[in-house]
């Protein structure tokens, strides 16, 4: 058996080096790479200027900002950043955002994966309808449901608790998750499943031993999407969380900026710091996020 595979591998190898020549070469009358570089530079400056304004502004004093609103810090002050970092508010809100984000991600992935497995690999009456119910969730954005959703959460006694944010976020993340994961799970070859059954693996055993591992790339993508959505979420926490101790970072930024509305420099420092985790997270998983978004859109 091993001998056969080795031979086929060797047989296949001579074909591998034959590459399609100049796959990426563009047509003849290309208006030029130079233009592309110039435009890209201009666009990137436009994209980053407001971000730079926030970050650099945090290094200035209010006096500097008043006398020259668009200038650079002279001298650079780290006081604003130190104030924010040593005060408890920022870290408590980072903690709340982290808890909400991780719990939302975990819940979305676990519930979404289980449901997607059934929708992808079981045949039963009503499967199409079930898929349609979840997919139709895309048509119900949270904005529309927010008022009654608040009432449901209030009746469950979950206002001012992170659970009141986490559960709806899981529910609203499920449609995208299922739409991304179902094709993924469907692509797992039937032979693999049959082989597992022959070896005495039950359907559930197959799910826990094989499916979870094989669908890792899709799981990571939906997990990241759920985490970023939760991290940036504003409307739902605005309705559910009124106690400043439970504020997540977006609510915290807004509360901070109205509380210290005259202390512009400190607001800028707080805002810059709150943006940092998302940017860090994004640069770590950039490839997957971009891939996941395009995958999600293409369905």
């Amino acid at each position, binding site marked *: 058996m091993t001998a056969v595979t080795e031979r086929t591998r060797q047989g296949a190898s001579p074909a591998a080096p034959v590459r399609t020549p100049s796959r990426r070469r563009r047509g003849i009358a290309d208006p030029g790479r130079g233009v592309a570089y110039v435009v890209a530079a201009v666009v990137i400056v436009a994209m980053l200027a407001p971000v730079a304004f926030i970050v650099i502004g945090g290094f200035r004093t209010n006096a500097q900002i008043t006398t020259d609103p668009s200038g650079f810090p002279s001298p650079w002050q780290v006081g604003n950043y130190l104030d924010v970092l040593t005060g408890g508010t920022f870290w408590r809100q980072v903690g709340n955002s982290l808890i909400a984000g991780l719990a939302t991600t975990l*819940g979305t992935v676990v519930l979404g994966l289980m449901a997607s497995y059934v929708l992808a690999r079981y045949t039963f009456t009503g499967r199409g309808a079930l898929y349609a119910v979840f997919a139709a969730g895309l048509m*119900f954005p949270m904005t529309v449901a927010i008022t009654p959703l608040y009432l449901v959460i209030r009746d469950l006694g979950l206002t001012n608790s992170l659970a009141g944010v986490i559960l709806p976020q*899981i529910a609203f993340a499920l449609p995208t998750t299922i739409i991304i994961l179902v094709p993924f799970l469907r692509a797992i070859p039937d032979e693999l499943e049959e082989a597992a059954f022959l070896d005495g693996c039950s359907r559930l055993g197959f799910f826990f031993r094989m499916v979870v591992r094989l669908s890792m790339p899709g799981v990571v993508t939906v997990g990241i999407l759920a985490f970023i959505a939760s991290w940036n979420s504003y409307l739902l926490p605005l309705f559910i969380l009124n106690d400043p101790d439970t504020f997540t970072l977006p609510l915290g930024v807004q509360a901070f900026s109205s509380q210290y509305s005259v202390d512009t420099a400190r607001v800028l420092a707080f805002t810059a710091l709150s943006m940092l985790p998302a940017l860090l997270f994004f640069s770590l998983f950039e490839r997957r996020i971009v891939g996941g978004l395009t995958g999600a859109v293409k369905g």
Partner: protein
Amino acid sequence: MTLRESGTDAPTGGAGHATAGGDAIASPPAAASAVRRGAARQRLEIALLVGPALVVFLAFVVFPIVMAAYYGFFSWQGFGPPTDFVGFRNYLTIFQDAAFLDALRHNATIVVLSLVLQGPVAIGLALLLDRKLRGQSLIRVLIFVPYVISEVVVGTGWSLMLQGNGAVNDLLADMGLGGAAQDWLADPDVAIWTLLVIITWKYVGFAVILFLAGLQGVPEELSEAAAIDGATWWQIQRSITLPLLGPTLRIWAFLSIIGSLQLFDLVYIIWGQYIAATAGTSTMATYMVANGRTSGSYGYGNAVAVVLFVISLAVALVYQRFVLRRDTAGAVTTAGGDR
């Protein structure tokens, strides 16, 4: 070998052990009961696996929307069961309220101008960047940065920059363009354009990334063949690339339209709930929050939610019927079809 055989039997609920004669000559009743038991087992598995997701989804997505439709018929302050049934009065009030009609008009403006402003810019950028460039992935990441930053940060940063004595006006003065300085946020003639610039800044990167992904699906051979036949770069883009990018463009436009109709965060953060109306940037969603929850009229707020939903749904269905129909893939299309 024997090991494997017993293994085969396991998933069918051990029915094989009962029929000692082996798999091939299993007596009909036993086989039928095995099938039935298998079916029961499968139902149990399905319930176990789908159940939690379905419960959460029904409780926090479907149920609130059903309740919104119900509460919308009451005048209700949100405490105790609603008793003051008012029929369609809330809906009449909504459509007679000039503030709501203004908000609706702003939403319509944002829908149209988002497409008009972001579409061409994003297509141009995607076509320009769809070639081998040094630092290619860095360029893409940097263009995408505003999309990743939360609306709250974007709103806070921009509103500080755009204040009357803020950085933007100061920069204009430094460049000798002091005359172009504006009251960017409060002037009703200017504010909606300010909002559109911020929206474009925040979301155009998403469109570019989407289009770049779509361009990956356009076969190189076609444009190469056209180039050999003497087509210019512009002709190739217009007659080959753009039509083949069609499905991506249509999906993007759909997402953009729905997003514009639901716009809330940016407006609420930059303009607050009351100033938005006077600055001419209020949307249906900010109207809903200001006149529903904030003023304690939950019945009315729910009615606004229903109107917002019906408008979004109608737009989505019309769009799918006439624009997306050709692109078979896509879950939204499937959902619409099974309706």
